[in-house]
């Protein structure tokens, strides 16, 4: 039996939400990926030997950006159907999965982790502060900003997860070329640009606030310059805060 029915797609989509539950350093998402495809494998391979071979194939190394995994699952399902008809075609499933996983990870990381997550976070903070400035109760501003963050991030993420399954199944290995035609890098640039503008406005907010004095503005600008310097040296959150903490303790000690 072949074809991705709506019930099968729903089941695979739900299992895809757990694709990283078995994440390990040796084979990364292999257990999660194999579990996603389990129903499909059982459907297309009635023979026990072919079923075991399919499980073995999908328990090999696999890793990609979790939201993009649907594309690979769709392609792998289609290839499993082909393998059920022509067993010799099973040989290319593993290499295709690896190649697609890497290509889609690059796209997904830059879109979701590098652009959408930070842009949605700063936009959500802007929503909260705007509502507060307009006189909304603090709880309403907070809840609105959290809902804004969750909705703006999850709407495209869930859509990509759901649509990825059908696109992967319909287009097969041509899905990567199709995704490249969608000009994702341009979308990433737009999202990052919008996020950067919002972050600029929020960062400059305290400088233009009427309630702060010139000395505060100088201190704020100096601290911001030091922090931007630390980030440009590639320091991550914990070491950067560690340096900030040590510097503050020294300033306080010298001051006393």
């Amino acid at each position, binding site marked *: 039996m072949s074809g991705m029915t709506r019930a099968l797609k729903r089941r695979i989509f739900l299992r895809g*939400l*757990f694709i*990283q*539950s078995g*994440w*390990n*350093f*040796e*084979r*990364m998402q*292999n*257990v*999660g990926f*194999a*579990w996603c495809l*389990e129903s499909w494998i059982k459907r297309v391979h009635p023979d026990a030997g072919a*079923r*075991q071979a399919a*499980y*073995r194939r999908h*328990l090999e190394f696999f*890793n990609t950006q979790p939201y993009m995994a649907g594309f690979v699952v769709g392609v792998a399902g289609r290839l499993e159907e082909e393998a059920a008809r022509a067993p010799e075609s099973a040989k290319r499933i593993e290499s295709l999965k690896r190649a697609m996983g890497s290509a889609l*990870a690059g796209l997904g*990381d830059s879109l979701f*982790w*590098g652009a959408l997550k*930070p*842009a949605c*976070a*700063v936009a959500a*903070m802007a929503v909260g502060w705007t509502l507060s400035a307009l006189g909304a109760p603090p709880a309403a501003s*907070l809840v609105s*900003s*959290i809902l804004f963050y*969750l909705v703006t991030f*999850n709407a495209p993420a869930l859509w990509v997860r759901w649509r990825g399954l059908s696109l992967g199944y319909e287009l097969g290995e041509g899905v990567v070329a199709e995704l490249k035609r969608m000009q994702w890098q341009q979308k990433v640039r737009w999202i*990052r*640009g919008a996020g*950067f503008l919002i972050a*600029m406005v*929020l*960062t400059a907010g*305290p400088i233009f606030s009427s309630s702060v004095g010139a000395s505060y503005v100088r201190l704020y600008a100096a601290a*911001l310059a030091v*922090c*931007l310097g630390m980030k440009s040296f590639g320091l*991550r*959150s*914990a070491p*950067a*805060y*560690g340096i*900030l*903490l040590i510097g*503050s*303790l020294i*300033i*306080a*000690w010298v001051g*006393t």
Partner: protein
Amino acid sequence: MIFWFAAELPALCVVAALLELDATCVGQWMVSRPLVLAPLLGWLCGSAAAGVSVGILMELITLDDLPVGSAMPLNATVAAASAVLLASGPFALEPAAAFPAGIALGGAFSKVEVRLRSARARLSRSAEAALNAGRLPKLGRFIAMGWTWQAVASGVFLYATVAAMGPILSWGWYLGPAFVRQGLSLAFASAQCLGWATALFALRPR
């Protein structure tokens, strides 16, 4: 105090541990991000203001810590949750002291996560062993074990560290030298600069 350690803190750790699953294991809907989790925990603990300030700062500071491949940055969820829990309860710390403690604990938990991820390779090997024995592996059970280990580890870690460190840090805050309090307060006040620098850097045009 007994009610806090015996009932409230364990319940809050369960909530935090369940939300922490969202960071890697289940969904990735962003409910584990500090901006969402910290205000919620703060509201549940009765320290909503601490939850909001910790949540916003931790969210900004960790914006460019990317969970890519085998990279193991600071666990922002555990960092935010422990900071909020330390700033609550009978030994409530000042957010200026709870925040760096949370960052340290988030960093420590990422080492626990490295162990967990190494241990999860056993699930993969068990699946292969089942196939070698001629049986189909029960992958659903392995998946459930994967996220159960993660939830138990983060819940136990949070409870143990917050219960042990809360009273010690609280006494240390008042008994320690004044310059430490001033330094911690200065670092907490300037953390927003680090947060905005991180946001600008993460979203800079390339």
